[in-house]
């Protein structure tokens, strides 16, 4: 909420009756050129994690627009039943651009968007597009491949551990790429996998991380909404890989790197387009090259020549010279899924529901 709105509200709030008259005040108090933007978060904003990175995206709009934007932010909306109501309210209260930030916001946005054809909807993690519903998503697997290569250089046991929130393609794919990255350095590496069936369950995540440690994993990567994986690994003397935000502060100096998400472009550009009247629904899916996925500073204990190799790998993935899902790729049962010389097609990456050979664990 902008300060302007707070002030407006204070002016009117002398009496309950007066406050009752303020239902539509916001539209009156501002000139036409102020862009109203609504953002719905799936969880509360914390110091790190998924929603924190989205809040930085929303902040980027504020920085770019200053007092020419009025942002309404609703957090902690996970259930589709609630999301549909919130999106409807945001749409009917004058917001011209509305962001959803979770896969679970998808079906509600698909229901609400057609009812408000003049409003632009942007959905992070979405798979369905409509005339006024665009989507954006990050190529996490590019980040996990580089992080996996770092793990491959640093692991002693040749076993890495992965903790995922849910076994959805956005998590399964990056988990595969993590192992493939490690195997690109050390081919005999295996990866133990645990799914929490929750994005935020520090207790369960700690247990999972300890299980992985006791199985001999000496690098742990956790794709959830907490720093628990990084923390538990560090306490157990193991390396860790952070996700979404740089989690080095939690890792007892043992975070190798983190694949962080910078959504600023995905927030600012649609806002500019809506303000200019040129917005169109897009399918944006970018990674290292566009800076949506960024590698956090590498741990000082990684040898300099290895860091140089990792940075080169970042560049090569960005330029397309290296593809994380380049063949030959086999699944857990040894079936060839991607032939040598070809790469996994984009739709198959977005819908990945199989583990590559070397993954230890089952899906669902």
């Amino acid at each position, binding site marked *: 909420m902008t300060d302007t709105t707070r002030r407006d509200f204070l002016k009117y709030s002398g009496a309950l009756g007066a*406050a*009752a008259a303020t239902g539509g005040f916001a539209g009156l108090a501002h000139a036409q050129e102020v862009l109203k933007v609504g953002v719905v978060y799936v969880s509360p904003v914390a110091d790190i994690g998924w929603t924190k990175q989205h809040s930085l995206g929303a902040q980027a709009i504020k920085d770019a627009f200053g007092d020419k934007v009025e942002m309404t932010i609703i957090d902690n*909306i996970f259930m589709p039943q609630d999301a549909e109501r919130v999106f409807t309210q945001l749409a009917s209260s004058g917001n011209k651009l509305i962001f959803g930030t979770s896969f679970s916001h998808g079906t509600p946005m698909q229901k609400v968007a057609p009812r408000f054809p003049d409003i632009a909807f942007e959905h992070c993690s979405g798979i369905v597009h409509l005339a006024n519903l665009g989507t954006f998503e990050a190529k996490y697997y590019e980040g996990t491949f580089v992080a996996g290569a770092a793990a491959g250089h640093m692991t002693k046991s040749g076993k890495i551990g992965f903790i995922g929130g849910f076994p959805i393609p956005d998590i399964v794919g990056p988990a595969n790429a993590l192992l493939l990255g490690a195997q690109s350095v050390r081919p005999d590496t295996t990866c133990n996998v645990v799914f929490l069936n929750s994005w935020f369950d520090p207790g369960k995540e700690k247990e999972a991380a300890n299980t992985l440690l006791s199985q001999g994993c000496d690098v742990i990567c956790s794709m959830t909404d907490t720093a628990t994986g990084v923390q538990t690994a560090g306490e157990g003397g193991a390396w860790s890989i952070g996700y979404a935000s740089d989690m080095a502060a939690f890792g007892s100096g043992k975070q190798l790197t983190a694949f962080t998400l910078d959504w600023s472009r995905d927030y600012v550009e649609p806002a500019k387009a809506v303000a200019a009247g040129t917005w169109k629904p897009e399918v944006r899916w970018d990674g290292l090259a566009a800076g949506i996925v960024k590698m956090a500073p590498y741990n000082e204990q990684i040898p300099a020549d290895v860091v140089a190799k990792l940075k080169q790998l970042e560049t090569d993935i960005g330029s397309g010279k290296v593809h994380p899902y380049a063949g030959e790729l086999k699944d857990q049962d040894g079936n060839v899924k991607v032939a040598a010389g070809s790469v996994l097609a984009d739709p198959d990456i977005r819908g990945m529901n199989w583990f590559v050979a070397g993954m230890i664990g089952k899906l*669902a």
Partner: protein
Amino acid sequence: MHFTIEQRPQPSAAMRVAAPIIATLLTLAVGSAFFAALGYAPLAALHAFFIQPLSSANGLSEWLLKASPLILIGCGLAVGFRGNVWNIGAEGQLIAGAIAATGVGLYWPAPDALLLPLMILAGIVAGMAWAAVPAFLRARMNTNEVLVTLMLTYVATLLLSWLVHGPWRDPAGFNYPQTALLPPAAMFSYFDPAYRLNTSIVATVIAVVAMWLFTDRSFLGYKMSVSGAAPLAARYAGFRESSAIWIGLLAGGAAAGFAGVAEAAGPLGQLSPQISPGYGFAAIIVAFIGRLNAFGIVLGGLLMSLLFLGGEQVQMTLGLPSALTRIFQGILLFFLLACDFFIFYRLRRSGGH
């Protein structure tokens, strides 16, 4: 100075009326101080919390839509609670109902006109079946139904997770864990297409009346209450404890099962790994706010629903973080239940020990 808590010889009639009023005043006072201390105008915050959500037709529709499952499940649970049958697992029974209804809706080749009635039937039967397990175990083996109902909630959640990750996954959904959308014939119809309130609320109205008739007007309901208040006396009078257990759990299961149907065939339209915003658990609070009485439960459900909508509204209009709104919701529920406590108990100053 010491205080002791002692039971009143008779429940206080005055407190019975005064408790909700005192609770409201205390909430308003403490809530205002709370908002003011955080730098938000208290009246504006309270207005956004309690008035603004209900100041539009859409708001009213959303209010009833959210209150409906809470009231329905609250009524079902209260039947058991009155007989000391503690069904904590309505959440699982709701999920079972939603699973059964969606299964019928997606995969049963029924004519359109019969589809929704069949789904409702399937959902209610599934909810009752889920509740029948703890009923059987408690009646036959004296197992603690609190544990069994709660644990079966996890079983239902995992069953749902398996279905949406596996056999029921939408083939056109990029392997994401959700089912296909239910066909239009499998959905409750709207009163007005502009609003989400749908005809499933009729079942809630029927349930409230049925609950009132059962608890206040039927001999069976009286027997359940006696079983709850004085199990030995009930046994002496020839009331079978097992019938109270079965009725209590099946009523809760049926209500929660229907609520599951209403969610799946209403605002959701499909299954995903998480389908209930905790209605099964919130309904326990609703039942107690309503003092296990049909009309009290209606008020309790409306209040809980309003608290939820209000929490979103203050975020929208004042930018309050959701954590603060939940603290305020907690303050209100605390005062409500704490004031009710003084209907049956009082504080007495006693000499120092």
